[in-house]
Each structure stands twice: as structure tokens, then as C-alpha cells.
């Protein structure tokens, strides 16, 4: 990681808090017992001293913007500062497109990022999603920490879709077996939903009883429907942060599903979520030349 990014980050956060430009800076702090990192809500210049930025900063903090504690804070008129890597900033762009936050309600501290560690990875093992990353410099920011061009920040090499492609190149039956096995462990804890910044609906479709499109019990038969519908709700909105897979307590790689669909959507409709706040979200519009060979 960039050597002086952390100190510049703390300086920026202190300034924002001391001048009252923001009520809180949402960032990363040292983890419990000194291991790893965890989200930190710095409310004073003092607390801002605890902010860190390193390869362990996997979390997509944007999820705190569309949900509590920041949602109510911003509704009350408070401004929120947020530390955002490229993938996180993409999530912020989607939230802006969907009217969930206002542009002047957030101060985005964009971090040039060379990749974060994958789940359960060794020291140098970066997450799949970081390979060949196209948003080393976040697509949206108010302040940028770390200069991509000058210091030659580069993401790990490789194909960010390698794991997705591996899955999709398997014969369909094998894929079916894989997902049947994996989803049989799903306990419907909804951690994947809670971790995702894009799942902000206060009353989610899973809560609906009239009608109950998604079975409520954690009985496996209804579990597949949950994942299918969630994937469709995220189609064209998933920014590939991988938090859902990381959050799953049963180690089900649910992020594969949405990242696969995101790649399909990009290929078919030339749309990548979270790159341009002015763009029309892909499923709010259509193309007269959209692929239709499958239609009889």
C-alpha cells in the first residue's frame, strides 16, 4: 500500500471533523486485539487518529450509508465522511443514482487501492475481485488520497472473473450439484443481505407475507428462490465488492452469483454499475437492439 496514505488520511479526517464539515468519518480502525481491521466511526479529531488503511481493509463501508447509523444522520442534515476504495466508491455511486443519499450529504475520501486480502488468504494473496481492478482510483471522490499515476499504483495482475469463469465453464449439471450442496447449508441468516450496500430496502421482499414470494423458513427448498431473486435484484447494481460472500457464516460463495450476473450484464448491455452517477441504471431502460435470440 501507499506509504503515506494512512497519515494523509488521518490528517484529512481530522480536518473534516475539526472544522465540522462532517459529523463522523466512517473508516477502518485497528481490529480487536490488534488483529486485522474493523469499521471505525470517528466522531472527533482525536478519534480520527485511530484510522488505518492497509491490505486488510476489505470491508465495503458504503453499506453504512444506506443503512444505520448514517442514514438517519444524513436525513437529519448531518454530513458523513467516508473512506472509500474503488469498489466502495462504486457502491456510493449506485446509492446516488437511486436517490438513497445526496451528493452533498457525503464527503468521499477516495483511497487509491492496490488490492485487499481475500477471505482467509495468506499475506500476499489478494482477493480475486482485486485482480485487474479497473477502479484503482475511485470513480467518485471529494478528496483523493494516494496518487495512482505518480507512484505507479497497480492492482494485482490477473482476471477478476477467474473464479466466476471457472464456475461458469463447468458443465451445467456440475454447477447444479455444486449449488445444491452449497445452498443446503444456507440458514437464511441474511448476513449477505445485511453486508450489501445495495440491499437497503427497510422492508425487504423477503419480509413480505402477502404474497410470500420467498419462503420464510430456512428449509432448503425455499432457499434457492431467495438467492435467485436476490441476484436479480442486484443485477446491474452489484459492484463486485464480494462482501456478501465474506459475510456468509456458512462459507457459501454467494458473491460468485452476483459477480457472474454483473459480468453478463456488462457483456450484453455494456453497463457497469457504479461508474457514472449520471448514467441511467441498466434495468431502468432498454435498448432497441438488446439481445433477443432466445426469444421464439
Amino acid at each position, binding site marked *: 500500500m501507499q506509504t503515506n496514505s494512512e497519515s494523509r488520511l488521518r490528517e484529512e479526517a481530522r480536518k473534516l471533523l475539526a472544522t465540522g464539515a462532517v459529523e463522523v468519518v466512517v473508516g477502518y480502525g485497528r481490529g480487536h486485539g490488534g488483529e486485522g481491521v474493523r469499521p471505525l466511526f470517528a466522531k472527533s479529531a482525536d478519534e480520527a487518529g485511530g484510522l488505518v488503511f492497509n491490505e486488510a481493509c476489505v470491508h465495503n463501508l458504503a453499506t453504512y450509508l444506506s443503512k444505520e447509523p448514517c442514514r438517519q444522520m444524513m436525513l437529519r442534515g448531518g454530513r458523513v465522511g467516508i473512506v472509500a476504495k474503488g469498489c466502495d466508491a462504486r457502491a456510493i455511486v449506485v446509492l446516488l443514482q437511486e436517490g438513497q443519499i445526496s451528493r452533498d450529504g457525503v464527503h468521499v475520501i477516495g483511497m487509491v487501492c492496490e488490492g485487499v486480502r481475500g477471505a482467509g488468504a495468506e499475506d500476499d494473496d489478494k482477493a480475486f475481485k482485486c485482480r485487474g481492478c479497473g477502479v484503482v482510483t475511485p470513480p467518485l471522490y471529494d478528496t483523493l488520497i494516494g496518487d495512482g499515476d505518480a507512484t505507479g499504483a497497480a492492482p494485482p495482475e490477473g482476471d477478476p472473473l477467474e473464479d466466476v469463469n471457472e464456475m461458469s465453464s463447468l458443465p451445467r449439471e456440475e454447477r447444479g450439484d455444486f449449488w445444491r450442496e452449497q445452498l443446503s447449508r444456507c440458514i437464511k441468516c441474511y448476513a449477505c443481505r445485511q453486508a450489501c450496500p445495495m440491499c437497503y430496502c427497510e422492508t425487504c*421482499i423477503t419480509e413480505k407475507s402477502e*404474497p410470500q414470494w420467498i419462503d420464510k423458513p430456512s428449509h432448503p427448498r425455499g432457499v434457492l428462490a431467495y438467492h435467485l431473486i436476490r441476484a436479480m435484484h442486484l443485477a446491474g447494481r452489484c459492484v463486485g465488492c464480494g462482501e456478501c460472500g465474506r459475510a456468509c457464516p456458512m462459507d457459501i460463495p454467494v458473491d460468485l452469483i452476483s459477480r457472474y450476473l454483473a459480468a453478463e450484464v456488462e457483456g450484453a448491455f455494456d453497463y457497469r454499475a457504479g461508474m457514472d452517477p449520471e448514467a441511467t441504471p441498466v434495468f431502468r431502460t432498454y435498448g432497441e437492439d438488446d439481445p433477443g435470440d432466445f426469444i421464439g
Partner: protein
Amino acid sequence: MARIGVFVCHCGSNIAATVDVRAVAEAASRFPGVVHSVEYRYMCSDPGQKMIAETIREKDLTGVVVAACSPRMHEPTFRRLAEKTELNPFLVEMANIREHCSWVHDDRGEATAKAIETVRMLVEKVRRNSPLEQIRVPVTRRALVVGGGIAGIQAALDLVNAGVETILIERSPSIGGKMAMLDETFPTLDCSQCILTPKMVELSQHPLARLYTYAELDGVEGYVGNFKVKVRQKARSVDHDKCTGCGLCIEKCPSRVPSEFERGLADRKSIYVPFPQAVPDKPVLDRETCIWFTQGKCGACREICPVEAIDYEDADEISEHEVGAIVVATGYDIIGRSLYGEYGYGKLVDVLDGLQFERMCSASGPTSGRIVRPSDGEVPKTVVFIQCVGSRDDSKGRPYCSKICCMYTAKHSMLYKHKVEDGKAYVFYIDVRAGGKGYEEFVNRAVDEDRVVYLRGRVSRIYERDGTLFVKGADTLSGHQIEIRADLVVLASAVTAAEGARELGQKLRIISDRYGFFTEAHPKLRPVETNTAGVFLAGACQAPRDIPDSVSQASAAASKVLGLLSADELVREPLVARVNEDLCTGCFACEAVCPYGAAERVKREDPRTGAEIEKAYMNPGVCEGCGACLPVCRPGAVDLMGFSENQIYSEINVLTESFKVEDEAK
């Protein structure tokens, strides 16, 4: 508690021959919620309907399923029947066991099983129907017509003569449109101005008509019956109340620019009246070419005006009006001469387009009605007319036929021959399309009486040498390449939508096709309506069209408007979308996908913070009930009456339950 009545129709033998209707009625009697289930020969007949009505009353039914033909056939019949009883008409559904069942399956067992399942589905659906009341929307009894050509004028006249106050907006300084530019019109060769001017005057003098010329539509809000429109009166710089139309300002004005009305064949002044019969016949000042406004010098018109009507301080004025319906009559244009390099890119001075030739024929035109070559003023002895310039051309032009060119080319050739008796007229054509009343006879006059020579073939090139135009073309009927040395060439250029039509359409939320022509609601059955309720089309803005058809269509549009405005309230089907604000997240995906603009943003107070937030509201006066908003609403906040989430879920649920029964039976 549900008390559903099921009525299974034999439809004579149409259903009963294949489906065991008694078994269906019997099975239905055991469905949860069903308290009455019978079969009868003809449900839609008088005795059939009477039976249903009586049963509704006797058994205090809360819902009715008629298992019979397609709901597209008789749903209105049975809903109308319910209106006469205590049962809300929207608690009546039909199970299609004829078109989708008895008429398409042979096996009695299969067909009966399918009929039973279908009835079960509709019983479950109707249990979740809500009683709905028709939506009433107040209507403003005033109309707006955009465009002052013959179509706009006709529509406006029909409306004001029917007692409806009508506002007409025209962006040029006078009404009249293209028809005012024409000399003689086909198929009668009567004078265009002579038949047009009385209508123009009638309209301008009618007490219920408000004309805004040199004005544009600035903005439109609202919906059918309740539009709020903003009209921008562009600054004329001439006070029409004071102006007497004496014309001294025009005489004195030193600035000359090409006249739009004369299509560049003559000039006008910067302060001008577009043509002698203009309505209003008072001038406007074109600030873009006026020396005072561009250079700060001159001011001659203001000095000379005897009544001090010239006002350089005049500014655009915006007025707001409430109207119930809008007629779009923005007309057409032609693409001109510059599309084809083969025809000189518009640089050959003696190659004209159809409208230019029209002006030349006109007695009040740039040449006082004499046909002369623009290059040297000589009378042309050989004139070549070329049809289909830019029409029926997939590669460079438009694929469509411009409809009027065959007729006006025949007319032009005849007008030429009437004025230059010893002249030679040639027409290059691919087809001659003369489908209207008297049209074929008209074209034959050109050939038989006026001895116009028709050559079937295209012109590959026109070039000029020593003042003569060489026209190289093919005569496919004789099989020869030919070259004609012409003095003048007239191109029948393709008809296009008027400039700015698409942008105007966007303001009105109506669709235009890729050529800018507005799209009608249905090409055969709804030619004057658009996809936006309350906005209608008249004339060539919809497609190339001649005067008789434009006038017909204008009257048709006016009759639609009169129908709309005939009652104080507009009654609409209540099968519309409704938002549950508690679930709405304010993402407004619904707003993005709604083709009618029915989604509105309403301000609400967030209960926990007191902050002002926005929620979606679907305007029942605008919503057409397509349900496109439902799949994009992730929390399921919006529902659609008549095809609601619960209803469709229950239909799926029931069907697949019977699959399970089949499974267990095995």
C-alpha cells in the same frame, strides 16, 4: 368470508362437446370459498345473466367466476351485469375454457382437467380481488392546438365551432403553414390561398379562438383533462395593438435576408410580414438579422413608424394556460436539394426543389408567377422533374414513400405547360402513385392534355455545362440510357417531419419514429391518438399527407377532443398502480420505466427524523395499468389493481398445487 359463485357455460356445444361441464361445476363446488356452482347453456344470454344476478342476490355472493369464453370477449358483459347488482363489477372474473381449452384440445379427459384447474385458478384470483371504483378525473374544457398549418387551423375551427375555447400556437409570424406557400392544388388546380385564407380569417376572428403567432410551446405539465401549458410569445418588437399595418417600416428597412417563405428565391427585410395574406398581417422584427440588434445602428423603422408601434425593449412573454386536450399539428418540411451529390449538392442554381418551384408558380411569388431560370432569368424551354428524391431510398435517404410528390409533380408539370405552351416537360418516375379521388384522372390530364413526357427510370447525374443542365437517366421501359439537356430541373424531395418536432414531442411525452414523425396509438384503429392520453395528432406531422387527408385527420382529432371534453369528468378504469408508501424506498425506478409519466414524487415527513423525504405516487388519472413498475420495485411497494401481486401469486400457487396432487396420485 369468501362466498364465490361459479357459473360454467356450455356455450351450446362449443364448450360442452369437449369439456365435461357438469364435472367442472361439480369440482368447483368443492373449491374453498365456493358456495354456488352451476352450469348453463348460454351464460351471456338474457336468462343466463338473469340467473347470475339472482344468485348474486340470493346467495349474497362476494365474487363471481364465469367459466366460458375469453375475458376479452365477455368480461365487460358480466361486469356490466354486476353493476346492476350489489356486487362490485371488479369482483367478477372469467375463466377461459373455450378459446384456450375446448376449442383447442381433443381429449375430453385432458380438456376437462385443464378446465377445472383454470376455474380453480380464477376462483383463487377473485378471492383476492378488491372492489374498485372507477376513477373520475375533472376535465378542463379548453383545447390547445400546436401548429397553424391547414391541419391545425381545421382542428381549431372544428373545436371553436363546437363551443370549445381553443388556443392555437404557431412558431412562424403567420398561420397558414405550407399550404399558404402553394400555388394551385391537386386534383382540382384551385388556388391554395383562395381556399385557405377564408379559414385563416374565420379562425382569427372567432371569439373562442386565441391565436399566438410567433410563439412556441415552452413547457407542458399535468395529464389528460388537466394540462398546464406554458406559451412563449417571442418578442415581436412591434406592438400589434398600435400597428396599423401600413408597411412603412418594411419599406425603409435596409437589411435584406433570404426569405424562408420564398425558400431562398427572394429576400425579405428584417422587419417583415411573411406573405401578403398573412394572419396577423402585421410585421415582426427578426432580431437575428436586424442591424439595430446586431450592430447597434439604424433604427429606421422606429423613426418612420407613424404610430410609434416599434418597441426595441419588447421581451419574450410567457403565459400559462390550463387545457384539457392538446392537438399536435406541426406539419412537415422537405429535405431540400443538398442531399445528393449526383444532383449537385444544392449548388446548381437551376436545380430547384418542389416548394421552390411552387413559389415560382405563384402569382405573388418571387417571380410574379413567371417560370424563369434563377441563373439568367430566361424562360426554360425544357424542364425535367425528378420524383422520389430521397424517398424510397434505403442507402442515403428515407425508405418510405413521401406520398404527395407524384401528385404535385404532375401538377408542376401541368402548371409549367400552362405557362410555357411550347415548353417540354419530362418526369422521371419509379411509380406514379395517384390513389386519391380524382387523382388518377389528374395525372392522365398531364400526359394526355398537356403532353408531359413520363420516363420510367432514375436520374443518375445532373451536371451543368455552359449554362445548360445535362440530366442523365434511364428509361427502363424502352431500355435506353437517355440524356436530356434541360434549362431547369425540379427535385421532388422527400417529406420529413418539421424541424424541432422530436423535441416538442418529448415535452408532450409522445413518441416519434426515427424520422421524427409522431407515432399514433395504433396504426389502423387509433390513427389520431398518441400513447399519451389527451394528446392527439393531425396532419403531416404523423406521416406524409396531402391536404384532403390532413383536413380529415384534423377533424378526426377534433372529434376525439370533443369526446374527451364532452363531460365534466373523465371516467377511467381503476386497474391502476398503487404505491404502499411504507414500503417505498424513494428509488424511483418506477418513474424511470413508466411510459406515461404516471409516477410523481410526493414529499413526506420521515417519521423518525422529521426530515423531508420523497415517496412515489402513481397518478390514477394517468396510469394505464401496464404494471411495468412492479418488477423494478424491489421491496414490492407498488401493486397493480386487477392483476395484483396476491392475485397472480394465488393463480400460480393453485396451479402448482394441482401438480402436487397429480404427483401424489401416481
